[in-house]
């Protein structure tokens, strides 16, 4: 691939930023951060070493950037497509996102302040308080790079088009047959992801965002990272779980905190003629989904859907069938299932 040589200053900046990785130490984000050690960490580092500077910069500077801008986000969920226009203010681990007019979630506001997330829902005057997701999306890219080390995925780079007037580098992750899994367009001098696309196994684009405005020198106030709405009902992930379980008519079974998995989202979903309680967890930067429902399931058919990194584990508890799905080995999923209460 052709790639423009980065400036010397950029190289020096990266050398400083990547020094802890090269020394096998954890970065400032802790053991789950991009700089993790061990065989997987080394595999990641070896792949990263062969990639151009903007990709290295993306990993090194994630959670440390300072900018404001607007991006259009599109994704598919439960068969429906959603489109949001997000106005962002980002200052390291603090961020504010407002969903502008024309968005599916118009009026909602999200503030991340280090570990704490506050999400305001104006339609029912409710504030959800939870854990800031921080670096899950970058962790998924890191996993892809690790998987490329053993040939399960292919990682390629190329010069990308200008986006919001900025030069970009395209990072593409594909399966061994060349089918795209993810594409990320990285701003060359900051490592900011300006565009991202995610595909399912059928090759359909199921999620994407693209910046339409970017300001690398924004005026930011501490007030930007506060939501203070009098009279709003404050709820947390357990409240959301109970509400979703009521809606599904299911007595909820959830992974306890001892499992290390953090509950992020709960939904009542109708699949076929069954009510399904869906819980989404985050663990070691990976997303897990716990499905709970009445009745049996064809595990052979489900196993046939296990492609790539995604595995499943099924058990019965409390008169319900439970299926845990995630990018983990089945024995690891089985261990987590023991924490279901």
């Amino acid at each position, binding site marked *: 691939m052709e790639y423009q040589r980065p400036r010397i200053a950029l190289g020096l900046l990266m050398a400083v930023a990547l020094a802890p990785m090269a020394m096998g130490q954890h970065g400032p984000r802790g053991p789950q951060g991009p700089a993790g050690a061990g065989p997987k960490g080394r595999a990641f580092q070896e792949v990263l070493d062969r990639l151009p500077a903007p990709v290295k910069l993306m990993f090194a500077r994630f959670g440390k950037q300072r900018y404001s801008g607007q991006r259009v986000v599109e994704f598919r969920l439960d068969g429906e497509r959603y489109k949001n226009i997000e106005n962002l203010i980002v200052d390291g681990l603090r961020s504010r996102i407002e969903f502008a007019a024309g968005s599916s979630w118009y009026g*909602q506001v999200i503030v991340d302040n280090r570990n704490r997330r506050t999400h305001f829902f104006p339609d029912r005057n409710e504030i959800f308080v939870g854990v800031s997701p921080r670096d899950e999306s970058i962790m998924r890219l890191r996993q892809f790079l690790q998987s490329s080390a053993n040939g399960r995925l292919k990682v390629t780079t190329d010069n990308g088009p200008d986006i919001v007037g900025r030069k970009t580098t395209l990072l593409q992750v594909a399966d061994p047959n060349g089918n795209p899994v993810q594409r990320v367009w990285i701003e060359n001098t900051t490592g900011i992801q300006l565009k991202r696309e995610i595909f399912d196994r059928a090759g359909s684009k199921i999620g994407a965002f693209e910046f339409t405005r970017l300001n690398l020198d924004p005026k930011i106030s501490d007030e930007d990272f506060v939501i203070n709405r009098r009279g709003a009902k404050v709820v947390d992930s357990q409240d959301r779980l109970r509400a979703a379980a009521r809606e599904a008519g299911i007595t909820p079974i959830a992974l306890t905190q001892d499992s290390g998995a953090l509950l992020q989202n709960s939904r009542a979903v109708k699949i076929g003629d069954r009510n399904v309680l869906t819980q989404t967890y985050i663990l070691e930067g990976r997303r897990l989904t716990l499905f709970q429902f009445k009745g049996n399931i064809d595990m052979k058919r489900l196993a046939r859907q296990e492609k790539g990194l995604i595995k499943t584990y099924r058990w019965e508890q409390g008169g319900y069938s439970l299926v845990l*799905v995630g990018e983990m080995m089945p024995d690891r999923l089985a261990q987590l299932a023991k924490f279901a209460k």
Partner: protein
Amino acid sequence: MKEEQNLITKLKGEMALSAEESTELDALLDSSSSIGNVIRDLPHEEPNLVWRSQLNEKLSVLAEKPKRRIGLWKWASGVVVVGAASLAVWSVVNTRTPVIATTNTTIADSTNFEDQLMQSHVESAAAMDVSSAYALDVVSSKETSYTGEEEWSTSDLESL
């Protein structure tokens, strides 16, 4: 001599010869007997109409057989063409089995419960990766779309 006369009589009368007579005729022709002169002296006549009619009927019957063969060939060539096309399609499908089988399976099975569970996981993970929001309260958002008209309540305004 008598046999020779019988032969001549039959030839003149355009009568059919037996196998023995045909052999005898051949021998006489080879022996340069007078029979050759007799044959040359036979009047040069056009075949009679009865014989020509019979010949035409035989030819018309024989002519139908090639037509049947042509029809058979048309049918056979059609089968061959269809077979070749099927073979070509099969070859293409067979060489791309992993991709096409996966696609067909996905489409055909897209309505079954197990596939939808997996699709739900994939979609929600993707949505969380690209969206800032992980509290994907989809149902609530769709049912009660916010208009912005209730951004400030009366108590909010009073507190200003």
